[in-house]
């Protein structure tokens, strides 16, 4: 698979997986207003995935979006591992969303000037939604970090857990330098520096500490995933697999 395709799969699959994971809170989020907001953002993420799969299909000769989304095995997915982790509580869901969406904001901001025109167009289109997603993540983070002793401790625990997977957010496709030279994107190292600066300032401002970035999330681009992914994919594709050729 060519490297640009792999990069777009990484973007699209991460959107799809975090969108589905976040949608799992629909109906059971802590308060009604938050339930609606979180579900609505999950829907935005799946919309971003659809737009990127459509780009892969129409511009790069890949299968149609439904086939891409619903018929691959876990080892074929390129999503960042942080996105696929089973959500053990709502605190974890919120902190992952805070960290993930800050990175989305930086990634898609930089892609607005990509030399791949359709990708730059999508990056511009996503930006209004991402603005609210980061606002939502930041405000929740700030409120929980400045809340009770318990909320503060649970935010710190979730931050530490997520950081064990943080290096995996920045896995490089093969021969990344060629993509950078062609102006297609700015590369993972640059994204990592911007993201870490931003997160460090937000976390320290809230009186918490940033853990060191761990390697537990490495390997997603070469087919390594946690055992949390396949059960989710099985549930996500259950209806599709009853009749894969059904016309909706």
């Amino acid at each position, binding site marked *: 698979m060519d490297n640009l395709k792999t990069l777009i799969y990484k973007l699209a699959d991460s959107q799809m997986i975090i969108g589905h994971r976040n949608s*799992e809170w629909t*109906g059971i989020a802590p*308060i009604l207003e938050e339930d609606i*907001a979180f579900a*609505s953002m999950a829907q935005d993420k799946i919309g971003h995935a659809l737009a990127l799969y459509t780009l892969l299909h129409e511009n790069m000769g890949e299968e149609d979006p439904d086939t891409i989304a619903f018929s691959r095995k876990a080892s074929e997915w390129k999503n960042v591992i942080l996105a696929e982790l089973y959500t*053990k509580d709502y605190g974890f869901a919120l902190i992952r969303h805070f960290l993930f969406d800050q990175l989305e904001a930086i990634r898609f901001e930089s892609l607005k000037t990509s030399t791949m025109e359709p990708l730059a167009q999508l990056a511009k289109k996503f930006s209004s939604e991402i603005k609210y997603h980061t606002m939502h993540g930041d405000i929740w983070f700030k*409120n929980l970090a400045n809340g009770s002793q318990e909320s503060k401790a649970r935010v710190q625990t979730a931050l530490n857990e997520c950081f064990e997977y943080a290096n995996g957010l920045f896995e490089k496709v093969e021969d990344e330098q060629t993509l950078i030279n062609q102006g297609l994107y700015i590369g993972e190292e640059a994204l990592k520096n911007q993201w870490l600066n931003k997160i460090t300032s937000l976390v320290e401002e809230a009186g918490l500490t940033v853990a060191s970035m761990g390697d537990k999330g490495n390997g997603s681009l070469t087919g390594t995933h946690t055992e949390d992914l*396949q*059960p989710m994919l099985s549930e996500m594709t259950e209806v599709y697999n009853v009749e894969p050729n059904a016309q909706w």
Partner: protein
Amino acid sequence: MKSSLDPRVKRVVPENQETIAFKANDHFTTYQVFTQKKTGAQHEHVGIVHAPNKEMAMLFAKEQYARRGKVVGLWIVRTDHIFSTKHEDMDMFASAPEKKFRDPAGFMVKDKIKAFKENRNG
């Protein structure tokens, strides 16, 4: 393969979590939400959200009341910051509908305007 990890199926309860007992009416305060449909237009009241503070009320209001259709701005007002008339004083408005002389539709000026315009153009 693991069984379902969807929190709606596998109800998640944090370890060592004590059961929290809720009292009647034990919830966040309410905020009134106003949306503005275009720049310069009046903000119109659209509903209420529960929230612990104004910042989070704004966050919730955006998705409750501005996720469909065009909105360019929100106002968020704490419900207890609104000063209102009392229900029992409703009678002070009672005679207003009778005062037709205050209704602009009562002034018959259409013909005069038409005549003025014709005169000006002619």
